[in-house]
């Protein structure tokens, strides 16, 4: 499951605009290290921890 899908599973209230406006930026530098959270500036939702993300599976 992608990082985006994990985040949406944790916070289903997030909208497309949150990811395109710069509030939340997911990034992949094509260096083999995969997707990561580059920016998390959501005013009410806390950035999910790695532990939270790891608990989400297919």
């Amino acid at each position, binding site marked *: 499951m*992608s*990082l*985006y*899908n994990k985040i*949406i599973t944790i916070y289903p209230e997030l909208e*497309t605009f949150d*990811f*395109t406006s710069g509030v939340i*930026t*997911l*990034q*992949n*530098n*094509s*260096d083999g290290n995969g*997707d990561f959270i*580059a920016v998390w500036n959501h005013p009410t939702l806390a950035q999910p921890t790695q532990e939270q993300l790891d608990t989400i599976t297919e």
Partner: protein
Amino acid sequence: MSVIKIKGSSANTGDFTIQPPDSATDRTLTLPDNTGTIISTESTVPPKVPLFKAYLNTTQSITSSTWTKIAYNTEVIDTDGWYDNTTNYRFTPQQAGYYSTTAGALIQQCNGDGLISVYKNGSESAGARMFQTSPGGTNRDLVVRGTAIIYLNGSTDYLEYYVYQDSSGVTKNLYDGGGSSDAYASVSAYLMRAD
């Protein structure tokens, strides 16, 4: 000590005049350390500006809602060797000035919006995001392409190119263009004005 040679016209006629400016200030003209033709405002010889063009010749997958660096991995031209097409996929020119850069990609079977953007030094450059709306329908290809003019300092500044699609959480592929240098997934940059 070296000498300065000024040769007359081969036609043995016509004066050649070096005209100083109407100024009391000392001026120094520094000539380039190579052989060539000095151009003037009336010259028809175009300047040789730094230029690169590259394209993607392999399919690249991009996760939904994630800015993903495009790995333009095949060079068509790279006049000064400033584009890295193997590791970081970035353009680091060693001449300061304003550069025009154009990047494009084709997102296959996209079911959402698509964007492409130029990043300067790892961050999205102001005014460099290009947006394309969803193609509509189901599984239609979407082309994203745009141009930006960006100042680079000629030493450490670099450009990278990122693409984004939001097909409801589904990973999509960038089309490799069938190995064509004129593929949709191509990038270029050239110096517009030296600093």
